[in-house]
């Protein structure tokens, strides 16, 4: 039904941001997410971590938006990671197979520590 999006800059080098999603990433939520995150990624030059610990629901459109973030960042030579995914969300992501593409972590600390792919 609705989504809350919070973006935080991390004190890391190279540049890294965290986008925390709260609520539902569906048709409407995804559109809202895209409206905010895409221009940011297009203009910026940072690696992105998506904190999904407060995400209650995701459907295929939501997955589309995660995939899109990943593709754009990959093209820019940047990384995209998912963190804190709830069990029911994780199941959906695994069935679709996106967890094989986008790295997932239990905690933010782990995600930051893994420097693979970070230039």
């Amino acid at each position: 039904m609705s989504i809350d999006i919070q973006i935080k800059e991390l004190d890391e080098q190279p540049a890294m941001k965290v986008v925390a999603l709260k609520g539902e990433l569906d048709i409407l939520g995804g559109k809202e997410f895209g409206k905010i995150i895409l221009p940011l990624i297009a203009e910026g030059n940072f690696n992105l971590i998506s904190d999904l610990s407060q995400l209650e629901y995701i459907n295929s459109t939501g997955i589309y938006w995660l995939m899109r973030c990943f593709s754009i960042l990959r093209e820019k030579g940047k990384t995209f990671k998912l963190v804190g995914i709830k069990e029911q969300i994780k199941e959906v992501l695994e069935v679709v197979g996106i967890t094989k593409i986008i790295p997932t972590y239990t905690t933010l600390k782990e995600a930051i520590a893994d420097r693979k792919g970070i230039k």
Partner: protein
Amino acid sequence: MSNDVDNQLKKKILELLTISDVIKKLNLSLDLDIGTIIDTFLQSSAGLFLIEKSALILFMDMSKTTYVQDNDKNFEKEINEMRGQIEEIYLRLKEKQGCLLANNLEENWIKSKFRAAGIELLVPMFLRKELKGIYLVGNRINKEAYQKEEIDFLFAFANQGIVSIENAHFFQLLQQHMKELVVANEITAAINAGLDTETLLDMVMGALLEMLGAHAGFIVIFGGNKEVLFFIHRGLDEQKRNTILKSRDTAGIINKSLNLGSDDVFTFYTESASFAEKDIFMDDSKNPSYWFGRCLFIRKENMVGVVGLSKKEGEMLSDKEVSLFLTLTNQFVMIVLNARLYELAITDGLTGLFVHRYFEQRLKEEMSRARRYSYSISVIMMDVDQFKRCNDIFGHEIGNMVIKKVGSIINLSIRKNEDIPCRWGGDEFAIILPETDKKGALILAERIRKNIEILKFYKDGKPINVSISAGIASFPADAVDEKDLIDQADNLLYQVKKAGGNKVFLK
């Protein structure tokens, strides 16, 4: 093994949920625009199968028939360039009634085109056995091939999606048709209400701009001598208006369209524009735009018009919009003809002044206004002195020339669009002067009298002197109603005649 089955099951459930989710959303709001519906469809599919690029092409009468995932303009261009190859596959898809893998195509050249564009699968979208669209599915982010079950799902999903798309399309058409009916009614009512030609033309222009999504437009109508009878415009600044008017004589938009010699729709792009015209091929935000329009031949009245509308480049007209354009511009012709007919009915052929009947109608209206707003109104009754004698001596041809000249002087002397001059009959003239008292009427009458007095006519070297007599009456000073007003003025005119003519009398 059971893990595999478990996964398959979960996937199936997810697919079903997706269909129900999306279709529920799409069918809930009838007035969702087609772009949103298609985006939803493409995004759901993409999310479910991790499709990196995809597109949808439609075979429907719409202004936009190619949609791509992510609104990627470069990919959209690529797909549009491939329309020819895609339509070649059309029949095969129709026969097969199922999906085609690009790799399995026989023609190598088409196969390589698809491969280069990243398209792996062609999914036909059927509606009532007709092929209404093709869903072009590209490669997946995990590079995996599409399994049979996945292809089957995409086929089912796409054939659900096309129903929503067509519903939205029909709803849009319905709304458009309703709008057209409303506009046609409004214009007809306005014509019947006797609104002036310029207002009517402006109404139709407004309707055209709104319905066809144009940001600027003009209609220019030329009379027999190339003189501009009407120039209605919207969304054009002074410089652009000048560019358009000048293009009658240069190799510009008006000249080019008239030279086409037909009333079919023409389209002009910026490439064909001369340097002097470049400004009209851009909208106010400097986006490139193009012009489309048609000529209007009103042969019966020796008039010709050009209607032009400007849209942003890339925004083409659908067949329905072209048809609407033709209907509405035909209205222009009707309006102008109607105005012309009315003009002919109320003007005297020789002098161009109004006829007696119109004068009476207007006097009634002006008296009513004068009473309501408590102001004066004056009437001047005039006739040419010794006119019968002039006719007898010099002939009717000279007589007509005199009448015409007197009429012209009256026309030039009055306040345009305020005073109402008429040829009362034969050699008699009358003028209604709204919001004018006796003093004001006298000034005008005297001016006319003097200008006629100094006229010089000659026949066979013999000079012809022309003069007029005039009587003035005013409301409420001299008369209580229309008849009284005319009678009073007429009486005074008679007295001028008795006094030798070439004078103006008032009470």
